[in-house]
């Protein structure tokens, strides 16, 4: 219980501290303040995990293995992006304050005990995110506006879904819904609203525009962290409200397949690196959704591992893109001969991309393996096959970037990399390889998170 309060106190300290410090102090102080507090929060979530995360309920918040898994992920993600923003952001003070606010919204989603928390949490995350996009780049007005309108639409859809659910079951707390036309439409609205938040086709079509139009560090935040919040919400709603309506999960499977194909096929034609990674992250969302569509504990475990994997892969890759962007090299040709310019960055980016394909001894392999395995084990081999076909397609565009990096070029000189980028890339790489070589702790965490979710949903 003490840890729970410590956790909430730290979050409050982060939010109020950041907002106050923004007015008063230097960029440097701001960075160290938020980094230290975030590190404390991360330590607390890990401690809570370790002590069992005994599903304590505090009104509308619930501390359980599932919420702690995501809280840990979001904290780590924001910590990394915050470091990156310190080096890259045009207006770091505002970024840090807004990021603290958005993070508190993410926690609300992760620790949600009812649809109300999910709703408020998503709202609290989306609004600061719009402004963060706006501040991230000189001409990001368009991207911010698009994000704002679509987020508003998604929130509106979500509220409609909640109205329907309340009408059908008379409560907004997580509770299995009964069969019925009203519930069916609520299901559809939830999938659409949260599908946008989790970048599911066709509710995600603006994403590449937003990703491309934001500063790369902000793209790392959107694709690496914000979209994972969408999955946290989607998982809770689908499993806690609708798991008994197994038939509806066929729709999720269709969306998963469509999302994979959309992301991978369009990625084939991209020439801008950020856009390519945007579509690639859509395809990764498809794989994650595939695990959810399997609709059992093994599938969701796989999805959670994949969510973990992709967060660090995406943030890592994007921090390299942000670094390249700061050197004026933002399309695929910008990676030409990267190996000659900076070996470490080239090797790191190769590992990130190969892990997205599913290289063994990286987290990307573990996630995909578990997802495909769960699909086959549940008699959905066709889904696994479609997923694998998509992996084959993805090879073509990843190979394009890989080959470009190792192509020799005339001229070229060593380009130094700043400490922040180096730190972020290093952490992402270390976690990707560490949990790829020794996946047991990760698999265990994901397993207990998903089994909690299914136990609560039953």
């Amino acid at each position: 219980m003490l840890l729970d309060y410590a956790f909430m106190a730290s979050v409050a300290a982060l939010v109020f501290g950041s907002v106050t410090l923004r007015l008063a102090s230097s960029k440097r102080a701001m960075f160290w303040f938020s980094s230290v507090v975030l590190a404390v929060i991360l330590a607390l979530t890990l401690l809570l995990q370790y002590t069992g995360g005994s599903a304590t309920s505090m009104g509308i918040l619930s501390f359980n293995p599932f919420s702690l898994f995501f809280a840990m992920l979001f904290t780590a993600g924001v910590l990394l992006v915050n470091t990156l923003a310190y080096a890259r952001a045009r207006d770091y003070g505002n970024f840090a304050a807004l990021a603290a606010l958005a993070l508190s919204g993410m926690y609300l989603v992760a620790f949600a005990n009812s649809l109300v928390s999910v709703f408020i949490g998503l709202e609290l995350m989306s609004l600061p995110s719009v402004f963060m996009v706006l501040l991230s780049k000189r001409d990001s007005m368009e991207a911010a506006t698009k994000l704002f309108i679509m987020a508003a639409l998604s929130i509106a859809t979500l509220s409609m879904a909640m109205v329907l659910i309340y009408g059908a079951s008379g409560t907004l707390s997580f509770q299995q819904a009964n069969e019925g036309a009203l519930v069916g439409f609520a299901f559809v609205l939830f999938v659409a609203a949260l599908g946008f938040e989790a970048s599911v086709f066709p509710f995600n079509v603006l994403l590449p525009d937003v990703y491309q139009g934001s500063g790369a560090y902000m793209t790392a935040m959107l694709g690496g962290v914000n979209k994972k919040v969408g999955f946290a919400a989607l998982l809770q709603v689908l499993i806690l409200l609708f798991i008994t309506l197994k038939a509806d999960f066929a729709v999720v499977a269709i969306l998963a397949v469509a999302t994979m194909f959309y992301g991978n096929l369009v990625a084939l034609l991209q020439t801008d690196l950020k856009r390519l990674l945007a579509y690639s992250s859509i395809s990764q969302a498809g794989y994650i959704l595939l695990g959810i569509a399997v609709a059992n504990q093994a599938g969701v475990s796989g999805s959670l591992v994949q969510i973990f994997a992709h967060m660090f892969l995406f943030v890592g890759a994007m921090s390299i893109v942000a670094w390249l962007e700061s050197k004026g090299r933002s399309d695929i040709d910008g990676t030409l001969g990267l190996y000659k310019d900076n070996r470490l960055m080239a090797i790191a980016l190769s590992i990130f991309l190969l892990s997205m394909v599913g290289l063994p001894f990286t987290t990307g392999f573990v996630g995909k393996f578990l997802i495909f395995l769960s699909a086959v084990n549940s008699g959905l081999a066709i889904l696994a096959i479609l997923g694998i076909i998509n992996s084959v397609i993805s090879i073509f565009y990843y190979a394009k970037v890989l080959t470009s990096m190792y192509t020799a070029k005339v001229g070229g000189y060593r380009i130094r990399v700043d400490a922040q980028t180096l730190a972020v890339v290093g952490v992402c790489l270390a976690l990707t390889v560490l949990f790829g070589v020794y996946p047991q702790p990760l698999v265990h965490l994901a397993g207990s998170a998903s089994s909690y979710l299914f136990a609560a949903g039953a």
Partner: protein
Amino acid sequence: MDPLFLLLPLLAAMAAVAADRNGARARYYALIGSALGLAMLPLAGFGTHSLTWFSVGGTAIQITTSITPLSFMLLFLVLAIGSLVLAYSFGFMDLPSEQRRFYTEMLAFEAAMLAFAMSGGFILLFIAWEFLSLSSYLLIGFWHGREKAVAAARKAITIVLISDIALLAAVVMFLNVYGTLSFSSILAAGISSNLQLAAMALLLIAVITKSAQFPMQEWLTDAMAGPTPVSAYLHSTTMVKAGVFVVLVLLPLFSAAGMMPALLAIAAVTIAVAIAGTLREHQIKRVIAYSTVEELGLILLAASVGAVFAAIYFFFAQSFYKSLLFFGAGNSMKATGSEDLYTITGLGSSRLVKYTVLFGALSLAGFIPFDGFFANFGIASAFAANLAAYALISAASLATSFYIFRWFMLQDRKPASAAVATGFLGLPRSMTYPMAVLAAATIAASGAFFVFPNVFGLQGISLQSYAGAIAAVVETAVVAVGAVAAVLFYTRKARVNKTAAVASAAPTRITIVAEATNAIYAHLAAFVEAVARGFAFFDDWLISAYDVAGHVSVLTGSRLRRIASGSVNTYVLVFAIGLALLAIAVVVV
């Protein structure tokens, strides 16, 4: 002891190479690591070991290693030939700037193949398989300043990764069906369901892709753009041998799945296409690359009719003469600075070089008492009962003998200039001595033909039996005819020039197949791209619908409206359409 310890010297050597700042000692570390691995090989006793990697929902994902006579043979080949290849690289890779990268990648390649050879289950097999792909990609594209090398590496990685993913799919299915991934349990369980058949089909795709069998053979010949030591290693014991090795290990499963006729057909077409390639090519390495494709086809052919001993022996024998011939090709390229057979001359300038290469050629053609003779003899006798098949095999033998002596005689012409002769004489010892070792091995390995049946507990092939004797005589006659024809044909200078012109002008019906395969790749890529364009058109449509929808912006602020109008509205539209379709889907479901 778990044979994974064999990887330690190689990994230690990799670390030492990586730490060697100016790369001056990299090659010594690499060679010591590899030789140490070879020295430690006898410590690996027969048996199976398992190591739990991680477990999920009660299923343990285990890294299983297994040492059987067959895997022991491959381990030996990988380490022994690997050490020779590394020694050969001392002379071949003589630029100081490329030392560290080259030896790191070579050691990674060797380690991956070792892990593959000792794998006793699909998990380690898959991991090794994937790392083989990656390290070969790096090595094929080693000279990344050359456009050809980059293109070849990209082609190789693209095709080979397809095999990796097919394998992953098969692995997942096997785990589902059998609940275990160790070969011994899977082999014991056999085949009973459709899912198993599907998994076997995927495994077949993985295998033929890795072993460059029809229609996936084209990446291998392009892969010649890599450094010659890499080619020598890739073609003799690593990478391409991985595919056929899996077939040999899991042969009962392929048989139970009813895939033997498919294997036979694939092997037969591959052999035909490959032989056509060897007869047409000018590039010194590509000729023997096609020859590797042919040999892998022969191994598969023997396996497909259940002639396991013949397949295993061929697998073994081929390693020596093929690496020897690649070393020879590397020497000729180094000495003359040319890669075209019709401009390379003067092989005879150095006796050691000439006679070692001749040993390789004689062995590949199948002259007694070289190991190639016994290898071909084993295959031929597997088909002795079927006269038509036997005739075709003999025809292939004839062609093989012809193309390898064409290859040899063209290089063995009088040196075109004094520079060429000194080029051959000036080859460093590190490049010629390993050849002498391999030349000796091509004869010594013949002994294995008589020892292997006992080691593997398989039915051997007796030379003394009546049919055996006849087959041996026929084969000798056939290869002699091929060799004599080539010698007669390619010793006169005028002839040589004429055939050079003819060879490049008229593609035969079979060489068209090789080109058609490339065309199929291109069409496939074009198809995927067309579908992708369809999706991209959809994306563009969203943006271009801008003008139509722009008037009905939901926002009032003029600046916001200007920016937001158009694409956002179409996004909203797509969102709504998606929602409607979803609703319909739910109702239907």
